[in-house]
């Protein structure tokens, strides 16, 4: 298939590419740009490891066509830490023990960050609901939820 020119803005940087129309954003990020922080798994929008922010909104990059991202801002996990300092959500994930194998974590952090941007004082139930599209098999979600509560400045249920 013929390649179409695309200027893709990722983490504030413009990339001049030429992509086939059927290529997904996930594919382009990982294979063309070599930015592998965004993960691949089911490729069917069921697991959420491919979550990126598109104009600040959490989406599954595996079902977004790269060409649909013209003139839009893509944020991946690599774009979260500003000038070397971790974003509070990233730091909370470290501090609260929310990271195990880590494969779901980039998507999880981005989904959490996007949610907190719109709702800075969420309840635990709201956080769980916000992360329902991100499967984690290692943690049982508990410390992930605690990390998001902590990043939001809320009280984390008693830790032993």
């Amino acid at each position, binding site marked *: 298939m013929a390649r179409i020119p695309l200027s893709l803005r990722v983490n504030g940087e413009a990339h001049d590419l030429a992509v086939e*129309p059927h290529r997904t954003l996930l594919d382009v990020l990982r294979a063309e740009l070599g930015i592998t922080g965004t993960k691949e798994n089911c490729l069917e*929008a069921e697991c959420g490891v491919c979550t990126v922010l598109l104009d600040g909104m959490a*989406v*599954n990059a595996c*079902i*977004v066509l790269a060409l649909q991202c013209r003139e839009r801002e893509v944020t991946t996990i690599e774009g979260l830490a500003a000038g070397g300092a971790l974003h509070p959500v990233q730091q909370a994930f470290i501090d609260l023990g929310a990271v195990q194998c880590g494969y779901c974590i980039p998507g999880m952090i981005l989904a959490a960050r996007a949610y907190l941007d719109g709702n800075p004082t969420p309840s635990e139930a709201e956080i769980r609901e916000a992360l329902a599209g991100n499967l984690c098999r290692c943690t049982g979600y508990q410390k992930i939820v605690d990390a998001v509560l902590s990043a939001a400045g809320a009280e984390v249920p008693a830790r032993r």
Partner: protein
Amino acid sequence: MREAVELGARFGADGRFLAGGTDLLIQMRRGQLRARHLVSLHRVPGLGAVDIDDAVTLGALVTHRRLEREPGFRGALRALIESAEVVGGHQIRNVATVGGNIVNASPAADVVPVLIALDAEVTCVGPGGERTFPLEAFASAPGVTARRPGELLTRARFARLPPNSATAFLKAGRRRAMEIALVCVAARVTLDAGRERCVDARIVLGAVAPTTLRARAAELSLRGQPLTERARREAGRAAAAECSPISDVRASARYRALLVATLVERALARCAERIGQTA
């Protein structure tokens, strides 16, 4: 929009309109659907509005996220929020559209039963002009609608509800999120001025027939009745008898019928509560 319609006409059955892509792209990847041309709608103006005046108009590109946050739907139209908010996760709802949900015509669709319960009509635009259909008659089989190849679905519209009305939506699944419904139920009830007897009802079922199904016998059973526990249970039983669920990897037909009876009863109870609450 004109350009989109022209492209649609040009590509015909070889083309599909792409909105959120949450059904289309997955079906293409699985090989269930082939399209040589995709016409992306994401920058077509005029299709993403929610207009609430005498009627409620939902542009085809209104996302589920937009629906679930619409303040105007927190009252009698509550079921619109309840159905939108249980579709996939945030990532899906951020991009998945009402129009896409209608055109995809899955018998298990969540928002469609609510729109049917609201007597919604949908409009398709082709080179020859507009055609409007009652949503109830729009789908004829799983994935098959009255939309002609190349036609663009532009909006769904329904009249405001009369006073003393309420809606409710319930969904059953094997887990509590990211589910395709085992059964879903949308109910709409309008009571008389004294809020005693039912003047009108809609009971719409998902995932228990080849298309979203109106349980007309169940609806009729409520006409002129107070919404007592007995009446609600009767309606539930009637609805269960009207549907034709299948057994598949998700659930058995018997369990689906059981769920229909229970969820109809509970959805009606919720409607009754809500009408009572607005007193």
